[in-house]
């Protein structure tokens, strides 16, 4: 009986999270369009609903109803599977994210490890999409994407080691609890910088949006996709943005925990911090030009990799001395 209840509660939570995530993602796209529009002295969506508020729903409907084109010479099965392979890992990761002290789907003692492991599966979907499209642009985009995501996975993985050493746990809730006094960003500024840059590269956001660099590769790995399959890639990109933002908040900014003198519920703190993160992502996109492929790799291996190694060493050394 208990077992059944647990499963039922979990199922309800999953249902809520997945649907809320999709809705929030849709509205993040709206916010992104609005923010960038105002950065560029224009209005953005204004027609559908008050100030275009219903635009995401109209877009979603459009993508649902659009003709689904599968190119003649594509590898059909892989072509259809690829978007699923991208979206599913992006959503599965939500299983361990702590949205507040009490609201989460599950809590496991290898939470962070789970996130890193699952989210790196997404690159398979991208490579599959590039290969199955049987288009040169898609293939180039997918190859770039594979190289970029695999390299930056490493920096992302190494950059979280510093906070982990301080927290002494991989359980995300415990990492949050460990920051109840001071956020780790003050102890680990280098790790945070590396984490942030790697997170941008992981999610293929500007200035690292090379895999879908529209001016070089038309649209990169999803050039041949349309309709709902295209929407899957889109959803996955934004879902991944939420994941890396949440991980960043949990590791460096005290998660859902806020300062004690402002009594706000944990979930509100989480949303506030998340909004700041998302805004910075969007802001960067509106400001920066795009890196070139070899420069991206150079930044990674020649600058970020030594930096993050030094950080791990320093953290261990100082922890041994003072703690």
């Amino acid at each position: 009986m208990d077992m059944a209840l647990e499963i039922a509660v979990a199922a309800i939570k999953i249902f809520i999270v997945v649907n809320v995530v999709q809705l929030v993602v849709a509205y993040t796209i709206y916010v992104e369009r609005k923010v960038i529009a105002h950065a560029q002295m224009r209005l953005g969506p204004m027609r559908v609903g008050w100030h275009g508020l219903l635009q995401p729903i109209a877009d979603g409907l459009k993508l649902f109803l659009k003709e689904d084109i599968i190119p003649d010479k594509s590898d059909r099965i892989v072509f259809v599977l690829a978007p699923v392979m991208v979206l599913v890992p992006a959503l599965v990761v939500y299983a361990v994210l702590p949205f507040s002290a009490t609201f989460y789907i599950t809590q496991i003692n290898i939470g962070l490890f789970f996130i890193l492991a699952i989210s790196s599966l997404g690159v398979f979907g991208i490579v599959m999409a590039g290969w199955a499209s049987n288009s040169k642009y898609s293939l180039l985009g997918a190859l770039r994407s594979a190289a970029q995501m695999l390299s930056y996975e490493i920096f992302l993985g190494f950059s979280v080691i510093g906070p982990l050493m301080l927290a002494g746990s991989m359980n995300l809730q415990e990492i949050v609890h460990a920051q109840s006094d001071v956020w780790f960003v003050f102890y680990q500024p280098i790790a945070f910088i590396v984490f942030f840059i790697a997170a941008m590269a992981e999610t293929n956001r500007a200035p690292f949006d090379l895999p879908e660099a529209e001016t070089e590769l038309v649209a990169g790995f999803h050039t041949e996709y349309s309709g709902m399959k295209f929407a899957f890639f889109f959803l996955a990109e934004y879902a991944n943005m939420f994941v890396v933002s949440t991980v960043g908040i949990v590791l460096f900014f005290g998660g859902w925990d806020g300062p004690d003198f402002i009594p706000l519920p944990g979930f509100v703190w989480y949303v506030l911090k998340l909004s700041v993160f998302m805004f910075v992502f969007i802001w960067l996109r509106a400001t920066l030009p795009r890196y070139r492929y070899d420069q991206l790799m150079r930044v990674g291996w020649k600058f970020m990799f030594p930096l993050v190694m030094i950080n791990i060493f320093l953290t261990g050394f100082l922890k041994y001395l003072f703690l």
Partner: protein
Amino acid sequence: MVGVANVSRIEQQSTVHGTEELVINMGPQHPSTHGVLRVILKLDGETVNDLDCDIGYLHRGTEKIGENITYTMFIPYTDRLDYIAAPSNNLAWVTAVEKFFDWEIPMRAQYIRSMVGELSRIASHLLWLATHALDIGAMTVFLWCFREREMVLDLFETAFGGRLTVNAFRLGGLHEDVPDKFLQLTQEFADLFPSRIDDYETLLTNNRIWLQRTRDVGIISAEDAMDLGLTGPIIRGSGVRWDLRRAKPYAAYPYLDFVVPVGENGDIYDRYLVRIEELRQSTRIIQQCLEQLPGGPVTCKTPRTIKPPEGEIYHSIENPKGEFGFYIVSDGTTTPYRVRIRPPSFINLGGLKKLCVGQLVADVVAIIGSIDIVLGECDR
């Protein structure tokens, strides 16, 4: 259909090292080829080993048309060449035809010609900056530039009634004097514009990513630039201080004070700096034109039918893209015997191969942007 043979030609040679090279068709429908340019790239990984341009998608036989209509009727056709800077093309044609005669063009017309020519230079450079920045991924600059370009197009509309293809000048001067409102709005624009150039520069000039993408990329030495016949901001970016407004002054340029900016290394960044400085200098020229603008008529007495004496002339002006000239052969009738357009985009694009081989795909996009081509004039 065009260039079907080209692909197969490249494909036949495409086993140089035993590994197969990737042949990519960039264009004619591609976001960053600035029109219907098709570039066939032969890639080794992401490095360009060879490239071939396929042009002509926009070929309309403008030279042939010119041989069969009168001198005045050809002015609107010149609008359709470099349609980003239409008044400049008009200026090139009218000054070329006027070279056949010894008309005294009134000074007011000369000053207005210079002023409108500089406005079209601003419009053209703004479109270049917008698309060039967008190619490299800076999206915001694109829309900021279009905001100011819109103002310039509004100015054209005030003066001539057209926005893009304006048919601005006539043989012997202007069709009509410009309205006072045009002068007033131009003054407002010239006062505002320098601060807007500063805005673009804050986003790009010292941006590390912009520097990394443009510095030491697409380098061309002064000797190579001359050998390839490159003109305009490209050759100035390579350090050759040569500008036809100075070298062979036309319109009111002998009386105007401006600096010809040059670069040092001849890379994309230097071409960027040269064009940005040209934007400032153009604003300065417009200010001077407005200050010195004399009164009086805007057209001289011209015969009812334009019949140049027999002979041949070549006349060129400094268009935003480079040297834009006309070679006209007159046989003494009302239609030219031969009209040859010297297209800067066509000849500058000929240097693309030299600039691109050995660079990366992403650089090809940046280099095409830095050459600043308009296919309407390239294909004629």
